[in-house]
């Protein structure tokens, strides 16, 4: 569970930054950047408390 949450969190961070990179490259529109940043922000804040600051289970 912890490992899965970690993977989801790091993918969410990528999801936050990739839309702006694509926007810089002229591949997506600004409204879609804003939408995907919000979606992956929610994913980050939901997944990160599952593992961050929690010791791995023995």
């Amino acid at each position, binding site marked *: 569970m912890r490992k899965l949450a970690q993977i989801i969190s790091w993918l969410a*961070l990528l999801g*936050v*930054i990739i*839309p*702006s*990179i694509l*926007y*810089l490259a*002229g591949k997506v529109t*600004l*409204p879609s*950047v*804003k*939408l995907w*940043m*919000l979606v992956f*922000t929610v994913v*980050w*804040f939901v997944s*990160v*408390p599952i593992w*961050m*600051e929690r010791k791995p289970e023995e």
Partner: protein
Amino acid sequence: MAADKTPAPSEPVNEYEREPVPEKARLGFTSFVGQYAGEHTAGTELMIGPLFVASGASAFDLVVGLLLGNLLAVLSWTFLTAPIATHARLTLYYQLEKICGRRLVTLYNLANGVMFCFLAGSMVTVSATAFGVWFHFPMPGLNDLWPNSVGWCVAALGFGVMVAVVAAFGYNVVARIANYAAPWMTIVFLAFGLVGLREFLTATGTQIHSGGDLWALCQTAIWKGGAPMAGQIKFTFWHVMFFAWFCNMAMHIGMSDLSVFRYAKKSWYGIATASGMYLGHYLAWIAASILYALQVHRDPTNTNVLPGPLADNACGIAGLICVIVAGWTTANPTIYRAGLAFQAIFPQSSRYKVTLITGLIVAVFGMFPAVAMKLLDFVALYGLILMPMGAVIFVDCWLVKKLGLVPYYAEASGTRFNWAAAIAWFATLGVATWLVQTGRTQIFFVSLPGWFIAAALYLGLSKLTQKKLPPSPYAAA
């Protein structure tokens, strides 16, 4: 670092307040990398970046000035703060008490607490600008020092009171959110820059085929240099470099971060501060300045520095959340530290009560945009006021004994007010004020000669005032 020192439910741990940090409690390098990266990507970065543009900084001044200034800051932590911290392994306050005596430290606490209140107030101001996007009330302009609408007052005060209550009763919840948010905030700041850059390309019709094209865009459209906006001081390369170096002067040269690095296993861990400097004080400042430059490029009459609308235009709701979280998570520990400083003055009061009252004062300060809009000046003043005591600590640690004087003189002599340290502090501030007021130098530069003045005064006055005492401390520390 917070993860390693698991705190009690309602307040952060303040261990080893009156003893050296033992070996078992010492922390590794990565603890400091994470802590500094989080602490220095704050809401105020969204004010500072735009203020560079308002001050007429050019592309070279900004990019190279920040690069070098931040390097000097990292070197200051590494070669001034961390060696003393790992030598004595005491908190700033306890070390100062040993040198200056309890009464003078009380005065220092008062100065420190007041400065923390203003700083936290500016963080509340930053976050409150996000609410203006949703509720459409008039917000302060670049040169506004007073609140300019009822809606603004309600938003800033309401948010400030909430921050105050949480700082008093739920510190660790916000501290945990701050840790969760830190990596995400850095990414959102980066996104601000990328989106702003694309918008600039579109607005100017520029095609980028090489690094030279990008640099040309930076020079001709983003950071054009030239005259500052009305009410702002012109920033040159030297202003940018010294600002980046001294904006955390209270922490490095002023030695506040002795309390942090006393936990470091090695003194070279000071270079961990590079994470905060180059993510928060380089990437974030540059990204925020791009957004503001874009706003002014589109509408030269719109000079308002409002992080909320800037973030909303670039990244929508995620940007607004970033503004609120960035302000809140950094105001939280700042209020707590201010509360601790004041509690040292009124030790009989409960920590919660003092923190709550401190937070309410901060909430009132947050309504006034004066500090946020003059943040460049305020930050320089903040460093200047606390810097002389850093010089006193440096001299006491490395030079006093070599010159045949007594280190930790207040402890050794039993005095509660070390006049040599007090005069070194006040006289340095007096000379610095005179230099600035008479136009001989600007506040951004005066701390450099100020440090040498404070160090020389403390040495000279110690020579004059110290009585012969039996040898004492650092050897034992």
